[in-house]
């Protein structure tokens, strides 16, 4: 039912008014905040990296918890994704955190298809959200959003450059998810090597057109810190859940014979920077970017595939209703056509089978007739023979009788006659 056009009188100029007193709508941000706090937040992290590179340990270190994790084996047949959801709470803020692990990544000898399960997983989460959005009765406020907000890509600390697998994978992911590359197990690289390594990695990413997540610099309150952090990418991190006594404090660290690497010491590694950026400053921006950029791109591509357009061939904007109707007609038409085809096929098949059956019947009939004829012929032959035999028998009997009577009536017949007779008999 299209809305009837209403005459709208609008004043095109916008005017700034000054207020006579305190109205109170400056509490709007707080209202928004308190609503979102009651709703709870949800955040989804995807960790991509080879087996044993430290993904689980880093998650434990970031969130200061021991998420359950069994050591993965190197001998998986392929890559598969393992999502785990946890409910965390800090002061009065509840966070539904989902950590998705890539199990088996980098272990196969042929890694050409390694990126596919990851891309498929991300797309599936987008698809689920899209389906929910397109429903008639939908409950988006209640929906558990499983779309990936951030992908942490773990780079092995070789000190030279990215691995070929890293480059290929990040290229496939950069248009679908926010990527933050991090250098894992960074306590094996010295300061000077690290500087060269970071520069090499960033230049390789740039020269291959890989788009990684940039911390936003449009909001003045955080633009400074974000800009400076952008220059430190990729972050070189060290993770640890064990505590070592340093001075008179127990800090999270790794103890070596030559010294202690402290996780939260900024001159040892960039862990603090990562935590700051990822959790304390930009978490909300990451969620926003995922929804406004990556998800919208997915949605647009998907809908275009399905045949939806924003403007028709005459460049008039389509209404969704018209598009739906057109699509529906098309779809029903398709269905009908298919039905017809199937029916036709069925009819054809039946005809064929019938024809076959008829042929077979005819064959059988012919055979029967033939057999009957043969049978009759045989019968006739047999009868003929019988008749013939009977005749012979009769003839023989007659002759026998004749011979007997002859021998009785003329017992002394001359031998001549007998002989003659014999000869006659013998003929």
């Amino acid at each position: 039912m299209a809305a009837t056009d209403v005459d709208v009188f609008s004043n095109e100029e916008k005017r700034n008014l000054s207020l006579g007193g305190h109205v109170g709508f400056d509490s709007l941000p707080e209202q928004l905040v308190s609503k979102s706090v009651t709703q709870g937040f949800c955040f989804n992290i995807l960790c991509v990296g080879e087996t044993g590179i430290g993904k689980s340990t880093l998650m434990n270190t970031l969130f200061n918890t021991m998420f359950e994790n069994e050591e993965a084996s190197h001998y998986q047949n392929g890559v598969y994704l393992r999502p785990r959801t946890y409910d965390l709470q800090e002061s009065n803020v509840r966070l539904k955190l989902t950590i998705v692990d890539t199990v088996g990544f980098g272990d196969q000898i042929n890694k050409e298809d390694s990126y596919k399960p990851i891309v498929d997983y991300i797309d599936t989460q987008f698809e689920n959200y899209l389906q929910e959005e397109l429903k008639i009765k939908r409950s988006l406020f209640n929906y558990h959003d499983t779309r990936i907000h951030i992908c942490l890509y773990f780079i092995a600390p070789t000190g030279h450059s990215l691995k070929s697998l890293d480059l290929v994978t990040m290229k496939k992911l950069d248009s679908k998810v926010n990527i933050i590359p991090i250098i894992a197990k960074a306590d094996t690289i010295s300061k000077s090597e690290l500087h060269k390594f970071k520069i090499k990695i960033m230049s390789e990413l740039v020269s291959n057109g890989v788009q990684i997540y940039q911390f936003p610099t449009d909001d003045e309150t955080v633009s400074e810190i974000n800009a400076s952090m952008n220059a430190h990418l990729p972050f070189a991190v060290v993770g640890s859940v064990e505590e070592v006594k340093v001075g008179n404090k127990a800090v999270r660290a790794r103890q070596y014979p030559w010294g202690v690497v402290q996780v939260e010491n900024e001159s040892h590694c960039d862990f603090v920077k990562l935590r700051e950026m990822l959790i304390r400053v930009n978490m909300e921006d990451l969620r926003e970017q995922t929804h406004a950029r990556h998800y919208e791109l997915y949605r647009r591509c998907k809908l275009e595939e399905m045949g939806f357009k924003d403007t028709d061939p005459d460049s008039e904007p389509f209404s969704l209703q018209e598009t739906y109707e057109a699509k529906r007609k098309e779809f029903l038409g398709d269905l009908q056509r298919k039905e017809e085809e199937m029916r036709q096929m069925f009819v054809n098949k039946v005809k064929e089978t019938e024809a076959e059956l008829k042929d077979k019947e005819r064959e059988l009939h012919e055979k029967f007739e033939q057999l009957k004829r043969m049978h009759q012929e045989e019968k006739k032959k047999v009868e003929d023979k019988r008749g013939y035999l009977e005749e012979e028998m009769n003839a023989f009997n007659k002759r026998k009788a004749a011979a007997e009577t002859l021998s009785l009536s003329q017992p002394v017949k001359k031998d001549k006659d007998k002989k003659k007779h014999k000869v006659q008999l013998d003929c």
Partner: protein
Amino acid sequence: PNQTGRNRSHTVGKLTEKQYVGFATLPNQVHRKSVKKGFDFTLMVAGESGMGKSTLVNSLFLTDLYKDRKLLNAEERINQTVEIIKHTVDIEEKGVKLKLTIVDTPGFGDAVNNNECWKPITDYIDQQFEQYFRDESGLNRKNIQDNRVHCCLYFIPPFGHGLRPVDVEFMKALHEKVNIIPLIAKADCLTPNEIKKLKDRIREEIDKFGIKVYQFPECDSDEDEEFKQLDKELKECTPFAVIGSNTVVEARGQRVRGRLYPWGIVEVENQSHCDFVKLRNMLIRSHMHDLKDVTCDVHYENYRAQCIQEMTSKLAQDNRMESPIPILPLSTPDVDTEKLIKMKDEELKRMQEMLNKMQQQMHDKEQ
């Protein structure tokens, strides 16, 4: 009294000064000649890019073999094939000359699809065997060059939980062609506990997959206890967890090869930091010659025997009588076996005859 025809060695007591013959100088003569001749050694290093292979080689031989080398970008490595690059240097120490050849295998394991990436390496090793085989069988054997690979250091990444499929496949493809010494690379990324766990894991997996790595020879029973103890420690320490360095740093008042971190200094030659010293001692100071011997006596001989077998089977097929390489005909069985064979033949003949007789009898009976 000496009885002819009997092989019995007479134990003579230790020769006294008056009876000094002089063959006790043989070791010295060997030493002198070998110094004059010089030695050669071919070492192969294999492992993914960035494992510290070049740095370790530089640290082992205290020289810089890799000035101005060019490393490939990630993009160039996507479809990279494995190359074989040889560096040969002549080094001298206290009058002893060593011709050292390092065989590098850049590109191994770096591409996205690494199916059979070890093939160029096995081909190279086989080529060297083949070349030596030809030279050895040739008429003029004065100046044979031994380019066979005596040892392969395989670098296992310390970032994982043990051996990966590509590690297993590589070692299985090479373990019967060359002495493999697996190493845990970049060991300064692991705490002592983690190193122990990883070593145990790797040893377990090497057993499980049936990989034959280089075994240190058993030490003689008449060696002293200290040596035996060292030998035992050495064997329990494998695979060695190594660290290399191209730079010299100042540590504890001395200038040593090491790596400088904000949290401390890793010294390459400090035995409590890594097993570099053990590797160096084993590879260069004590077992270099044994590695060569095993290569000649085991791996090369295996290759040679296989080659000859293939050749003779081919010759039999082609019905050719001469072979391009002088080889002895298959050894004649000894007398006992011949007798046995004869006996068995006769038995067979007898049984055959009996069978024939029985058949004949049956046939006759029927008729």
